[in-house]
């Protein structure tokens, strides 16, 4: 037992034993705030009068001890330890001129508030659970009579059903974000933008379909739209004198190449 890790001068034997029990029980804590609240109880004062400085020291001692015993602590606990160390320094050292941020006193006050609020909620929870409760202390009608409107066949669905159905649809593998269906439509502007940089390399006659982008070649609707847009774009490019177009016969492939200057 590394008792020297605790400020043995400030803590009585029973307090030390209590602190050691905490270490053993480290999994029992619901986060650093919970631990701080438990530690603050050892001060045996009203939460409003708790010494935050002493509390910070108790907490840091706890962390130190846990480290010594090689107990893995969740990151939360270490973050809190770092913050408390910072708080401690703010509380002990006079503020430097031009210091930014809240004072040590403000930070300590907020921590005290958080602890008091958590304790209050805990007490409220206990009072709530101690109330007379339906199904234990008082009871509803044991043989209720179903009352229905005449027209009804009742369909059942809960909010959970609804949300799960939605989640199911929205997480399907083939899901794509929903937009008013523009997915299958390519505009001439898009085709132009795509073709302009490409035609520089089209010294030879190339089938127009080769310019259809990836993913637009199979699905008939998308292919149709991409084809139309690319053709319109190629007319535009031809008008600007950038390319030549040819089609050997009706329904033959349309081919384009870079205009020869």
């Amino acid at each position, binding site marked *: 037992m590394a008792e020297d890790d605790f400020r043995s001068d400030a803590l009585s034997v029973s307090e030390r034993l209590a602190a050691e029990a905490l270490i053993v029980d480290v999994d029992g804590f619901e986060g650093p705030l919970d631990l701080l609240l438990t530690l603050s109880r050892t001060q045996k004062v009203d939460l409003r009068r708790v010494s935050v400085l002493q509390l910070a020291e108790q907490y840091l001692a706890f962390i130190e001890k846990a480290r010594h015993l090689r107990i893995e602590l969740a990151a939360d606990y270490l973050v809190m330890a770092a913050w408390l160390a910072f708080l401690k320094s703010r509380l002990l050292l006079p503020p430097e001129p031009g210091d930014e941020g809240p004072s040590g006193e403000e930070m300590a006050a907020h921590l005290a508030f958080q602890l008091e609020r958590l304790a209050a909620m805990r007490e409220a929870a206990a009072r709530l659970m*101690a*109330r*007379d409760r339906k199904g234990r*202390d008082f*009871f*509803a*009608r*044991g*043989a209720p*009579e*179903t*009352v*229905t*409107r*005449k027209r*009804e*066949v*009742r*369909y*059942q*669905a*809960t*909010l*959970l*059903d*609804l*949300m*799960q*159905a*939605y*989640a*199911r*649809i*929205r*997480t*399907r*593998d*083939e899901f794509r974000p*929903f937009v*008013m*269906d523009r997915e299958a439509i390519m505009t001439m502007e898009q085709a132009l933008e795509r073709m302009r940089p490409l035609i520089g390399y089209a010294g030879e006659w190339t089938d127009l379909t080769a310019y259809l982008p990836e993913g637009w070649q199979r699905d008939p609707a998308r292919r149709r739209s991409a084809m139309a847009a690319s053709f319109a774009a190629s007319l535009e490019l031809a008008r600007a004198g950038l390319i030549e177009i040819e089609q050997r016969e009706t329904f033959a492939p349309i081919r384009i190449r870079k205009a020869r200057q």
Partner: protein
Amino acid sequence: MSDEMEQPETGEESLFDAPPMGEQERMVEAVLFASAEPVSVAELAERLPHGSDPAEALVHLRKRYEGRGVRLVRVGDGWAMRTAPDLGFLMQKESVETRKLSRAAIETLAIIAYHQPVTRAEIEEIRGVSVSRGTIDLLIEMEWIRFGRRRMTPGRPVTFVVTQEFLDHFGLESARDLPGLKELRAAGLLESRPPPGAMPGPGTEEPEEEAREGQSELFED
């Protein structure tokens, strides 16, 4: 209220006198009210403090409820509380059938709730299968969805929105309060418990599911 709980345990009390008749009557009243089945005098005697006389308490109780909206009646060898027969019309008891909403319907409803106003074509787009008329009709009939404004696009298709009735049923203040995907996941609704029937693989609906939905989904691809 809860102070009353400090009453002595039944066992201890049995050492003393049985509670006064008025108290016994209260007890019989509470037991009969909460019980799903008629309760016999013997059972009452077992449950009431030792030395009680449930038969007498029943006489008093029966008198007390005479002419009220609820009566104390004998059913077989037990006793039960029943609503007065002349008030049966208030119950409008009819055979109620509770059915689980089909998967197609719940999905359609979910899409309308999350995307409203939404057209039928859009619902089909999101679900990836066509939506049968029966599904829409059912949801309209249940008063969970209604027609919204027509969309100002070619064909001016009708849109669907959810109703106040829908919000009431699902305990929502507005459809905007429905949680998003991220929140569903945060609340543990997504991964922690896969929905019954697990997640469908890409694109394929489970065939048996389709078959079960059968009739109402005749028009599905």
